[in-house]
C-alpha cells in the first residue's frame, strides 16, 4: 500500500509497470476504442490541437460540470503524450495538464502519469499547510505511515 505524494499539492504523480512493450501501451493511450474501455469514452485523435471532451465522474471534493474539455498539446510516438484538461466546474474549475510518459523497462513499459495544475490554495491544501507544516507535520507522519504500511 502506498500513500499519495502530498509533497506538492499542485501535482499528482502515479507510475506503474506494464508487462507489455511501449507500442502496445501507446495504442491503449491513443486508440479511442481502447480508451473507452479503461479511461473514459472520448473522441480522442492523435493530433496536436485536436480538442476532445470527457464525460467525467463526480468526485465530491471537486465540483464537476460533468464534461471536461481537453486538447492534445504535444506528443512523441510511443514516448510521451500531453493534453490539457479543463474542467469548468462551478466556481472552482480546474485547468490542468495530463502527461503520459512511457519508458521501456525490460520487456515491458514503465508508464508515468503526471497531472499538474491543481490549486494549492484550495481550502484543504491551505489548511493542511497551516496545520501540518514542519518536520513533525503532515508530510513526516504520512511518509512514516506509508513506510509502516508498505
Amino acid at each position, binding site marked *: 500500500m502506498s*500513500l*499519495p*505524494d*502530498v509533497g506538492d*499539492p499542485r501535482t*499528482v504523480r*502515479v507510475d*506503474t509497470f*506494464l508487462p*507489455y512493450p511501449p507500442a*502496445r*501501451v501507446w495504442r*491503449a493511450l491513443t486508440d479511442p476504442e*481502447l480508451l473507452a*474501455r*479503461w*479511461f473514459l469514452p472520448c473522441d480522442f485523435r492523435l493530433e496536436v490541437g485536436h480538442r476532445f471532451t470527457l464525460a467525467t*465522474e463526480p*468526485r*465530491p*471534493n*471537486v465540483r464537476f460540470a460533468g464534461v471536461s474539455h481537453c486538447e492534445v498539446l504535444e506528443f512523441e510516438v510511443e514516448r510521451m503524450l500531453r493534453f490539457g484538461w479543463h474542467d469548468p466546474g462551478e466556481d472552482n474549475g480546474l485547468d490542468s495538464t495530463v502527461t503520459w510518459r512511457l519508458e521501456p523497462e525490460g520487456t515491458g513499459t514503465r*508508464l508515468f*502519469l503526471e*497531472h499538474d495544475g*491543481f490549486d494549492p490554495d484550495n*481550502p*484543504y*491544501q491551505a*489548511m*493542511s499547510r497551516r*496545520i*501540518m507544516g514542519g518536520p*513533525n*507535520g*503532515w508530510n*513526516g*507522519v*504520512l511518509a*512514516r*505511515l506509508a513506510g*509502516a*504500511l508498505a
Partner: protein
Amino acid sequence: MTAAVDDVFAALASPVRRELLRLLLDGERTVNDLAAHFAMARPSVSEHLRVLRETGLVAETRHGRERRYRLEPGPLMGLADWLHPYERFWRRKLADLRTVLDEEDDA
C-alpha cells in the same frame, strides 16, 4: 467540507496529538509509555488520546489493567484522498488499463 475531514484536521491541529501519532507509528504503546514522552500530567495525555480515539485515528485495547493504543490509518488515508482527489482516480484507471491490456493479450 465534511464533518469527518474537519474532525481529522482538528485532531491533527495539536502538536501533542501529532507527536502521539508519530510515536504510535512504531507500533502499539501503553498510556504510561506514551505519557513518559511529555512533560504534562498523564490525565492531559489521556485527554489528547481521547480526542484521537473519537476521531478514529487511534484504537484502544485493554490488556488486564493496561490500556494500549495503536494507530488506525483509515482517517489519514481518507484525508490524503481529499487533498488529492485525482490520485485514487488515476490509480484506478491504471489498474483498468492493465486489465484491458491483459484482455487484448488473451484475445
